[in-house]
């Protein structure tokens, strides 16, 4: 196995751990905005995985998906943050 393959495995493990952490934060909350933030991070991790695939396998098939992912993340978090309301008591 060449060096690039080893690096690919390490990167996949690191990104999987990071995605697990972000998914835990989406599940645990405690508030809606924490979940929005964690979903944004999960989207960034998916983008990193797509870019890793492009770099290691020498193709550009994911480039349009990478750009549209950032558009979707932007629209999603702005929309939710715009309409979030206060349902909690004063801490």
């Amino acid at each position, binding site marked *: 196995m060449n060096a690039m393959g080893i690096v690919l495995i390490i990167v996949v493990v690191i990104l999987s751990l990071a995605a697990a952490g972000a998914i835990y934060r989406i599940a645990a909350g405690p508030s809606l905005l924490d979940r929005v933030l964690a979903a944004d991070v999960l989207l960034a991790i998916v983008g*990193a995985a797509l870019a890793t695939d492009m770099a290691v396998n020498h193709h550009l098939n994911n480039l349009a998906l990478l750009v549209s992912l950032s558009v979707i993340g932007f629209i999603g978090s702005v929309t939710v943050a715009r309409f979030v309301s206060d349902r909690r008591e004063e801490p």
Partner: protein
Amino acid sequence: MSGDAILDGLTMACLLVGALMSLAAAIGLLRFPDLMSRMHAATKPQVLGLLLMLAAVALQMRSWALLPVLLGAWIFQLLTVPVSAHMVGRAGYRTKHRRPDLLTVDELNPVVAAAAKDLAGDPEDDGGRDRGGDPAV
């Protein structure tokens, strides 16, 4: 050591550091106590992580025609991430997703409180949202 090997090494370094940025954000999301400090951690993979990953793609493809596309993708991310972070932070502050005991200085609180008092004190005033109608006031 040939040029190809150096570029491959740089690519691997970019991939590893970019992946570690994602891991740092996930650890920050898990360990930090409130929304504001979690927002601080979440920016790492969105800006620096994406830059390193796109640099790895550029180093592997080695095409000048590709560079504007990758730069455009990154600059677009640079433009949208602060806007969405601002919206999330603003909504988070105003819906009390903050921990006052963790803050050293809170300069925004008097401003928000004054705005809320203005809104509550004058029922005709809708906070400047509707500028039309009622020209006598």
